């Protein structure tokens, strides 16, 4: 693990200035935690851990606000209902968004698998499918936001349906999550382009697909929590 050869032959793409590499080497002290785990994967997990805390802070403050208001909380089941064919179906858009995001997680998991099988075309195709599903999700979210803002009159400081804190929590939580999805879509498109170009066949290492996949699954995971505690509660 701590062999000197590693530092002398940096991988293609890791062309950090020597001074930065020396800095990192000093702090790493030639040691490596999580033996046999790709460093990028360990770092992605640690980033996701910090992101977990950020989203948890949002969700906890939402809980605090909702538990301390003395006026009724708007009923999400009715607020997010859609009228389809003259019939009002509760929460239907959110349900569809959930299925879309779960499906994108499914295609991403398959992409990772095909990556490790060295199947370049399948990997890139599945990643683009994942990105498309993610973009669909963001599109539906944009529709949901505009419906709430322009038709229902929901604002971060108030709304006609009840507790004023509803808008603040809604825009903050779903907005931050939507930004994550958007960033994920961009990341997927960049990664799939690199897959198609054969970058990972040349380096012989498809770990980047799995590491990108970790981020994508995390975004899905956060949505599972938002769906449960914000929309269904």
């Amino acid at each position: 693990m701590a062999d000197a050869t590693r530092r002398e032959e940096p991988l293609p793409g890791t062309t950090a200035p020597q001074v930065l590499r020396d800095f990192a080497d000093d702090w790493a002290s030639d040691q490596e935690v999580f033996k046999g785990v790709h460093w990028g994967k360990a770092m992605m997990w640690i980033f996701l851990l910090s992101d977990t805390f950020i989203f948890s802070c949002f969700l906890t403050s939402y809980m605090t606000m909702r538990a301390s208001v003395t006026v009724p909380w708007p009923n999400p089941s009715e607020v997010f209902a859609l009228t389809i064919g003259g019939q009002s179906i509760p929460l239907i858009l959110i349900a569809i968004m959930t299925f879309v995001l779960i499906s994108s997680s499914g295609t991403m998991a398959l992409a990772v698998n095909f990556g490790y099988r060295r199947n370049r075309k399948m990997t890139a195709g599945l990643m683009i499918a994942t990105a498309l599903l993610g973009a669909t999700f963001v599109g539906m979210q944009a529709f949901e936001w505009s419906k709430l803002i322009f038709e229902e009159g929901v604002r971060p400081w108030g709304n006609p349906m009840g507790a004023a804190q509803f808008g603040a929590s809604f825009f903050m939580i779903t907005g931050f999550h939507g930004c994550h999805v958007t960033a994920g879509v961009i990341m997927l498109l960049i990664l799939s382009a690199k897959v198609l170009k054969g970058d990972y066949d040349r380096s012989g290492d498809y770990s980047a697909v799995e590491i990108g996949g970790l981020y994508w699954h995390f975004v899905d995971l956060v949505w599972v929590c938002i769906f449960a505690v914000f929309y269904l509660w």
Partner: protein
Amino acid sequence: MNHAPVHDISHKAALAPAHEGGQQHPLGVYFKVWGLLFVLSAMSYAVDYFHVEGLLRWALILTFMILKAGLIVAIFMHMAWERLALIYAILIPPIALGTLVWLMLIESDYTFWTRILFFDAGS
């Protein structure tokens, strides 16, 4: 060394947990989990659709949420096959959030009653 181009697919069957270079599992696992996630999502939606209320509603919602989260982390994110050190480093710290939630529940209860008692029912 974990950057090294590793593994030909031929020794796939011999892959141990957290094998260096990547995770290689049969595709069927992913399709099963995918299906399960769909079923669990449909069930949580059904909770809302059929207006299950009260304690049962919250219990069901949280159960489905935890099951879905567990499936995603364990299978899709491959945590089930990672090294124990990594699993503990990532999954133990979030438990601290329970303390935050507990403290904020106490705090919100206090705020609620302060509003009721001093601000004319919060209006």
